[in-house]
């Protein structure tokens, strides 16, 4: 069963624009991670944020975590056509890991 719920389900933007995706979850977590999946490279880990962290950066990615609202956001700045993919959030509680249904991002050149 899915734990996280991404919003929006689909997002279409122009190259160079920023993309923001949100993830909400239901139960207490240990970590929250974001993954990207496209047909060319399969499922790839992007970034992990621990439950005691509020913000993390990695290159053009910025992730925030609000445990009081049980939500996270992924911001991709200066998007590129190569960022076109599905993005999933995944949460774990040490004993189980659950993915959301994903946001489908399309970046138009």
């Amino acid at each position, binding site marked *: 069963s*899915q734990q996280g719920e991404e919003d929006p389900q689909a997002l279409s933007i122009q190259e160079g624009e920023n993309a923001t995706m949100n993830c909400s979850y239901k139960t207490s977590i240990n970590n929250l991670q974001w993954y990207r999946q496209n047909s060319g490279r399969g*499922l790839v880990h992007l970034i992990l944020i621990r439950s005691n962290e509020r913000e993390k950066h990695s290159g053009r990615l910025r992730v925030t975590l609000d445990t009081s609202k049980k939500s996270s956001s992924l911001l991709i700045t200066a998007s590129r056509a190569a960022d076109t993919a599905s993005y999933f959030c995944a949460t774990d509680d*040490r004993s*189980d890991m659950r993915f959301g249904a994903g946001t489908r991002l399309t970046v138009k050149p």
Partner: protein
Amino acid sequence: EAGVVQSPRYKIIEKKQPVAFWCNPISGHNTLYWYLQNLGQGPELLIRYENEEAVDDSQLPKDRFSAERLKGVDSTLKIQPAELGDSAVYLCASSPGTSGFTDTQYFGPGTRLTVL
């Protein structure tokens, strides 16, 4: 360095037939995961191995699914008998340590199963 290898990449079988998927994790990785991914959904964890030990198999439908990881390296996931609803992509992943889900997982390309 080679990534996670899975075979076959595609499998088409008739319902009630058995099927097996094979996974070779990244060399030196102690933890191995099997996931199921339905179309338009995120992966769902089936089983997690730390070395040879299955530490979490609560989501594995044990009436028809089985898995093994002999010698703590390669792993095989089996379905017997397969049902129509088993059509999905089966993903294998591995991670270097045994720190639960904190380690980065590296995913294989998956095996797409179609049950007719």
